[in-house]
Every structure is written in C-alpha cells, then in structure tokens.
C-alpha cells in the first residue's frame, strides 16, 4: 500500500512540475497571465483518453464519447501534447493579439469557465459531467497496471518527461530568446521599439506552453485512468499560479520547488487534517482559503518567491567593491 501511495505522489509531483515549468515560462518569464492553463492540460488528457480508449460501445456502452481509437503508447501522449499546442493557436490568436494583458487574463479565465461548462453539459462529446473512465494506461496490454513493477515503470516514464521538459524549458528561459521574453514582460512597447514582435513571441510561448500542458494531462490521465470536468475546474489553475509565485517567478528551479511545495506538499499535508472537525466540507473549503492566503502572503512579504529570478551576471564583469 505504501508503494502505491509513494508512486502516486511521485507521478502527481512529476505532472505538477511539468505544468509549473510551462506556466512559469508563460507567466513568470513572458508575463502572459494564462488563467486557462488547466484547459490545455485537460485537452491533452481528453485527447490521450480518446486515443487509447476502445470505441464507446465497449464495456456495455456505459459512457459515450467520440473517437476511441485504441492506439498504443506513446501515440496518446504525443497526441495529447499536440492537442494542447493546437488548441493554443486559435485561443492565442483571439486573446493575445489585440487585448491588453489584464484583459487577456480575464478573457482566459472566462474561457476556462466556459469550456468546463460546455464539456460538462454536452454529454455526447466527452461523456459530460461523469467524464471518461477506464482509460487504458500505457502498456496495459503487456503489463498488469496493478503491480508494483508497473507503478515504478510509470514513475520512470513520468521522470523521463520531466527531464526532457526541464531541459527544453531551461534552454528557452536561459537563452537570448528568454532574455527577449523577459524584456517583453518588462515593457512591451519598448521591446517593439527594438525590433521585437510581441504578438509572435507571445504566440510562440503560448503554443509551446500548450504542448507541455497537454503532455502533463496525458501523463496524468494514463495514471489515474479517468478524466472528468470536476478535475479541471478553473481553481486548479490558481493552484499552479500559487506554486509559481511561491517558488519564484522566472526561475525554473523555483517552479519545481513551487510544484513540490504547493500542489503536492500543501495538498498532501492538509489531507491529514481530520475531516470530522466542523461541518462537512469545511476542511476542503478551508484548503482553498489557505491557498488564497498563501498567494497573498507571498505577494505581500516575498513577491520574488523562494527562489527569485536569477540576476544574469556575465563572465568578466567588472567586480566592484562594496562600500560600507
């Protein structure tokens, strides 16, 4: 039982780290307040699900959905990542071109709410509120998913994805391109005046982030084997924002730290608070209050987060003596 708890925690940690790295690139580095981040994770999860599920007539036809292609690993994961990227294109084109950044945030938040409402209520699409269940995990035709070996295999697959995403995102953030993104975040008009095209930069970051978010969804759905509108409500995005803010905006290590501290650590710790205290539903509600307080607390007392964005000092910089 302990093994399952540990592997469960590790896979969630991996998924959250991947998501936070993508969100940090969008929000921390580039200044795009993507309040619909969870939608891109969801589309990746749904895509991976319908790519790996059998047609909906299977299992007595208890759920309805389109697709059902029964494709082998890694196609569902690749498909999930691609879907996240594809969805980013129309959303980005509508939201990122004309709107000022605060309105972008509002538009994206509204998009997140609308998408969830549509998927919940349009049952023929993706089985509505009940969601998709019995999603076949990768290699489930070869290895029994209910064994410890399989659990460790899944942790390994997740870890490989974490490493790949970290390397790629780190290359982007720590490159001259990342510097351009930070300049755009600081002052868009001035960035334009030095020859940068903000719309193109934002679109690129939005799509790359969408791909990564889609992958994180695909990984998660393969593990928990179900996906429903209740797991990707808009507050989930807020948790990821809290993670990036706590960890340190603009810092990839900070994003990892934030993922471990907030969605994993914070939720795990509060899980052990006895739910018998107070009326039913009090403790889960207070969890949200605590997340809100965490964000406000950090923005107030340590806005740069646990690991602030590094100051880039170049080799051979004139060393100045500190004067008292």
């Amino acid at each position, binding site marked *: 039982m302990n093994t399952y708890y540990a592997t469960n925690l590790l896979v969630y940690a991996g998924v959250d780290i991947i998501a936070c790295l993508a969100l940090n690139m969008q929000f921390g580095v580039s200044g795009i307040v993507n309040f619909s981040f969870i939608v891109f994770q969801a589309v990746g999860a749904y895509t991976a699900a319908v790519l790996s599920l059998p047609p909906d007539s299977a299992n007595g036809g208890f759920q309805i959905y389109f697709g059902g292609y029964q494709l082998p690993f890694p196609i569902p994961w690749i498909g999930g990542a691609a879907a996240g990227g594809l969805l980013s294109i129309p959303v980005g084109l509508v939201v990122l071109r004309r709107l000022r950044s605060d309105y972008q945030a509002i538009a994206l938040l509204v998009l997140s709410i609308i998408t969830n409402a549509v998927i919940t209520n349009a049952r023929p699409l993706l089985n509505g509120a009940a969601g998709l269940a019995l999603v076949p995990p990768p290699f489930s035709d070869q290895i029994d998913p209910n064994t410890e070996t399989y659990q460790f295999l899944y942790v390994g697959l997740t870890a490989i994805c974490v490493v790949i995403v970290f390397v*790629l995102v780190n*290359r982007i953030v720590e490159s001259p*391109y990342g*510097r351009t993104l930070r300049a755009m975040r600081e002052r868009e008009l001035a960035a*334009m*005046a030095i020859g940068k095209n903000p719309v193109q930069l934002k679109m690129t970051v939005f799509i790359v982030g969408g791909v990564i978010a889609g992958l994180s969804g695909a990984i998660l759905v393969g593990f928990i084997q179900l996906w429903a509108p209740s797991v990707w409500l808009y507050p989930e995005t807020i948790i990821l924002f809290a993670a990036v803010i706590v960890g340190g905006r603009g810092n990839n290590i900070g994003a990892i730290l934030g993922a471990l501290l907030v969605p994993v650590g914070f939720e795990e710790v509060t899980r052990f608070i006895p739910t018998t205290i107070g009326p039913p539903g009090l403790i889960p509600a207070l969890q949200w209050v605590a997340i809100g307080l965490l964000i406000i607390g950090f923005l107030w007392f340590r806005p740069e987060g646990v690991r602030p964005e590094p100051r880039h*000092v170049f080799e051979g910089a*004139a060393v100045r003596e500190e004067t008292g």
Partner: protein
Amino acid sequence: MAAAAEALVTPGRPMLVASDIHRHFEGLHAVDGVSIDVPSGQITGLIGPNGAGKSTLLAVLAGTLPASSGTIVFDGEDITSSPAYRRARRGLVRTFQLPSEFARLTVLENLLVAAPKHRGDSLFGALMGKGYWIDDERRLVHQARALLDRFGMSAQESDYAGTMSGGQKRLIEIMRALMLQPRLLLLDEPMSGVHPKIVLEIQHYLQDLRAEGLTILMVEHELHMVERLCDSVVVMAQGKVIGSGTMATLRRQREIVDAYLVG
C-alpha cells in the same frame, strides 16, 4: 515660410520623407498634415510648445502609433504600413520621452537584448542549446561593453536597470538603440530630467555619432542645446509645421518667435 524651407541644407537624399501625416485622437488633430524631410547625416531638431504634436509625430514615424493618413518613406522604401518592430529592424529606431528601460534586466542585458541577428534569439536557436549561440553572445557582450565603456557605465553592467538614476536610464536607452546599429535615431527629449553634467555628455555623444554618419531627429525643449547641436530645426505648433531652417533664420521669423521662441 517658403524662404525658410529653402534655407534648409540637404546634402544628398533625405533619410526619411514624411508627407502629409495626419494623426487624430477622436476629434483631436494631434498631427495635422505634417510633411517633413530628415536630411541624412545631420541632426535635425524638432521643437514647439507643449501639445504641438512633436512626440505624436515621432511615434507615428517610428510606427508606435499608426498614422491616420499620409506616407512615410525611409531610405527610399515606403514604410507607412510597416509595424514598429519591422521599422526598428530596418534601422529606424526611437527612444521614449519617459524612461523605458527593462527594469529587471541588468544594464548589460538591456543592451544585449536589442542586438539584431542573434542566433540564440529565436525558439529554434534557444532549443539548440548554448553551443549554438555562444559565439554570437560573446561577440555582442564585447560590443555592448565597448558602448558601456564609451558612455562611462561599465561599473553598472550587472546592476538591474530599474535601479539606475533617470540620467543613467537615458544613457541605457541611447546605448540600447545604438546596439541595433540604426541609420536614423529618433530621440524624444533625451535630455529631460537629466543632470547637467550628463546633458553635456549626451551632447558630446550625439556629436560623435553624427560625425560617424548617423542621422538623428530629436525633440528637444532646451533651445540653447538645439542651437549648439542641430544642423536644422523644424518648428511645430498645434499639429502643424510652422517653419524650418537653422535656429538663426528661425529667430528672425516673427510668427515663430510669437508661437514659441518668446522668453
């Protein structure tokens, strides 16, 4: 006024020709039918009372604001419909009236980020890794440090630009513009709010840059400065050009003196 226009010395072809530029904000005619030539290799001053439309004209020329109507030809190419970033890449670079540094980038990074044609400054280049772009980076760091040295800011290269003084931010902005290797520099009040000592330095730098062949169009309020620095001057009032020529010829024209030069 025609006499004043003829007095304008134009060696070679103009670097920038703007014809009949209009820019309206709702009912307000901020720029109302302005035609202006910026002669190449010179410093042209743009003066006028507050609200004359100078900064708006500069923004329209740089593409930061679209023109309501009119045409802009830069170095023989019609750039009227080209966006600001594309004009900057072609060598038409502006600075802003208010400090516009990238606050949480270091001083050196503020310069580096402006460098065009950096192999690492694209998604592809970034994903290829450091080995792909490090040579470009080294070359540009060298180039940026030479500028910092020239403008006396080497000691601050690793400080955040946001922590610099107003005058230093001006210098950062000018250096950043120079990193683009512009052919025409549009300066919006580069001396405003700057310590007199730095004003003198900026003046020397601008003279050096002209000697190196850079064309400059600058909005400036300080008339002594304009007189010392500018080869020719364009005067605007209420969205229109009311005269142009050297400061000496302008001082002799009554309507210009009335509109602006009094006091």
